[in-house]
């Protein structure tokens, strides 16, 4: 079972995890990852853009790939768009499985792909204006672990 969403408003991880857990009473474990806007230096705001014809479809395909690679009961991918402040949740990934190792790996896989292989564009506002952010070398090497 997939729960894949692009959220234009607030991401509330508590209710999302409660609902996901209730939807998977058969699972022995759920691994979740919550990504937040890092309160870094002089970053005042962050904005995420997506492209409707590609972004949700790509996230659905990513969820399908995780369900193919690991014996999961379910996977949740929720990703924010729009304007955010430091500390705000950006992304919530969760994987439910009979055994924990599959859930850990699937959540890790999904996050690495959402960081640098999903149709989102991120920019930060600092004191001197807006700056588009590109993936770091670490993000690319993280992604390459799964090929």
């Amino acid at each position, binding site marked *: 079972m997939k729960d894949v969403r692009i959220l234009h408003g607030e991401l509330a991880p508590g209710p999302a995890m409660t609902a996901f857990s209730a939807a998977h009473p058969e699972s022995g474990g759920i691994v979740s990852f919550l990504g937040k806007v890092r309160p870094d230096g002089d970053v005042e705001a962050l904005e995420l853009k997506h492209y409707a014809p590609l972004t949700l479809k790509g996230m659905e395909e990513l969820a399908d790939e995780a369900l193919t690679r690991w014996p999961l009961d379910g996977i949740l991918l929720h990703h924010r768009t729009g304007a955010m402040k430091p500390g705000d949740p950006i992304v919530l990934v969760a994987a439910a499985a009979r055994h924990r190792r599959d859930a850990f790996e699937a959540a890790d896989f999904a996050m690495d792909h959402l960081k640098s292989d999903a149709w989102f*564009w991120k920019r930060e506002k600092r004191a001197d204006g807006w700056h588009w952010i590109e993936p770091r070398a670490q993000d690319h090497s993280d992604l390459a672990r799964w090929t």
Partner: protein
Amino acid sequence: MAVKLVFLGKLADLAGAPEKDVPGPLDWHGLLAALPGPLGEAINGERIKLAVNGAVLPDKTALAAEDGDEIALLPPVSGG
């Protein structure tokens, strides 16, 4: 009718607008001709991908768009 160009990420800043209509039909050389200056140079780079009507082109130089099509110009992504 026209071909609609949609600029994502930093390309919207280079274009000065998120969208632009250009007359169709439009191939790769026509697209470059329609986007002179730094935008055209950026799109020529291998890190920029194109999608037509929501399908990413494996080879952007094979672009063949008609009036009514939407071409998205996609710079490197970053999420999460």
